[in-house]
């Protein structure tokens, strides 16, 4: 049976009120390991041109966050296990750590500053979409995470932990690519599993 939400205002906020300011979780929740940030290559925003994948408004380093600091994917992509959508972290989530962490070198300090400014101006960051699944194909992330495990993301998105800037590893719109996987795992390839 459906669960009923209580506070209509809440929904309102969810809808468009990207303006209500609430102090997010304290930095304590963030992984503390700030130790050797030298392991990941130091790259300035300017370098991103040379990297594969679209250039993002903020040079967010998956290789540092997910790779070096081993922050689990679901810490930010919080709905991936429960919903068809992975969920893009709210700015609040970023600030959870970055109220405390200001960066270690000029390059990433500059980027983190962008985040803090955005938070100050209550302006969400408009990320450039990397993976765009054609809308006539329905892909419930939750079930795939359930089947492939919490690190199953890599099956489709590639080893993000090594990507300074995320790019498309597989053409997720190649139906054949999906079908191959379904065949290997002997799960249904009925058309109406994805197309409806």
């Amino acid at each position: 049976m459906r669960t009923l939400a209580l506070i209509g205002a809440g929904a309102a906020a969810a809808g468009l009120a990207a303006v209500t300011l609430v102090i997010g979780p304290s930095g304590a929740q963030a992984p503390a390991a700030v130790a050797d940030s030298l392991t990941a290559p130091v790259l300035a925003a300017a370098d991103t041109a040379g990297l594969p994948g679209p250039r993002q408004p903020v040079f967010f380093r998956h290789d540092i966050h997910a790779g070096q600091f081993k922050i689990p994917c679901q810490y930010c992509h919080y709905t991936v296990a429960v919903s068809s959508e992975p969920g893009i972290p709210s700015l609040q989530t970023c600030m959870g750590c970055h109220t405390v962490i200001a960066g270690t070198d000029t390059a990433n300090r500059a980027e983190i500053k962008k985040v803090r400014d955005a938070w100050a101006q209550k302006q969400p960051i408009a990320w450039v979409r990397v993976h765009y699944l054609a809308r006539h194909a329905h892909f419930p992330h939750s079930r795939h995470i359930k089947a492939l495990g919490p690190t199953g993301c890599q099956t489709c998105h590639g080893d993000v932990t090594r990507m300074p800037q995320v790019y498309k590893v597989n053409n997720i719109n190649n139906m054949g690519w999906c079908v191959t996987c379904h065949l290997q795992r002997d799960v249904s390839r009925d058309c109406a599993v994805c197309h409806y």
Partner: protein
Amino acid sequence: MAVLAQQPVITQTHADVTRDVAATLGAPSRGYLLMLFGAVGLFLVGLLTFLILVKDGLGHAGYNPPVFWSVYITTFVFWIGIGHAGTLISAILYLFRSPWRTAVYRSTEAMTVFAVMTAGLFPIIHIGRQWVFYWLLPYPNQRYLWPNFKSPLLWDVFAITTYLTVSTTFLVYGLIPDVAAVRDTVAGWRQKIYRLASVGWQGTDNQWRHYSRAYLYLAALATPLVLSVHSVVSWDFASAIVPGWHGTIFAPYFVAGAIYSGIGMVLTLIIPLRRVLKLEHMITDYHFDNLGKLTLLTGSILFYAYGMEYFVAWYSGNTFEQTTFWLRAFGPMWWAGWTMIICNAFVSQLLWFRKIRTSLTAMFVISIFINIGMWFERFVIIVSSLSNDFLPWAWDQMNPTWADWGILAGSFGWFGMWFLLFARTFPIVAIQEIKEMIPMPRKRGGHH
């Protein structure tokens, strides 16, 4: 002429044949050019209509659900039907060694090829997303998807492409020796072209040996093909469950109709052509007499089929069939139903009289009736059956729009354009086969 009417060709020498036929390839007359421009004009109308359909969707055409197929499929079947006379005359009559085919088979074959070419456009025109028509072809793709070979439409795809290829081959193959003959009569750049087209044909004993054999086999293969193609088209309907479509009689019924309509179109074409190209002494009323008989035969088969449809509807006791056929004759579309019966079943019966068969005017008029009647036959079968099928609540009548007429006109333009161009460029009468029928001169005189 009546005296000579029993012979295939009026006696003349081989040299005359070459000369006369080559003469048809001379400079075009004004009348010819007018006809050609007319055809191109109509084609452009059709093209424009098609572009509009692609831009906005099929809504412009006169579809009123439950009538999901109407003028386009009608015209498709119409042209496929036209495309049957050619192969019938050139292949089947060849096997029967029927002497009268010789003079006319080249033109009918050409007509076949262009008619099928025209028909081939319609499956693309009529679908909702024309730009993905190729999904009907079994080509390997990244989706691992194949088309559905259980669908009569796939059968169509194969039947029509095969038919188009084979009849084109047949036409071109038959042309080679004649092109060679033309090559040897003309000079300059035209000779260069014909030389290439004649792929080194010399008429040596060895070439003739293989050529004639293969021609026989082609005829043998084309014969079942011509019968199969319209059967397959008829199964588009017969294998559906729509009352008025779902009949075992359909295959023979459609084939007969196809040949009937084909010959109708042959007459419509060669009667003027004969005059324009001055071929009176090769295409004589001996030919028209025989074409007339063939028309009478197929027309009578249709007559029988119409009667049989109604009989079966009544005899089956199937309420759906009965309603459909009752409405076909007395429903909102009675006019179409009766047009088809009069033009096909009744008009064809006039051909019992030799006088009519040998009167060009009469034959021409009748041929026009046949063309109209056969178009309406398909229209009636498709539209009136769909208009009132199983569920009364969903019944509705369709009413055609400019988009329907535009495409119809365009198809005639497209067909005419190709046929006219062909008639000017290639021998419209089979030189070498005519020669075959004229005994060669002998120094000792007499025939052996």
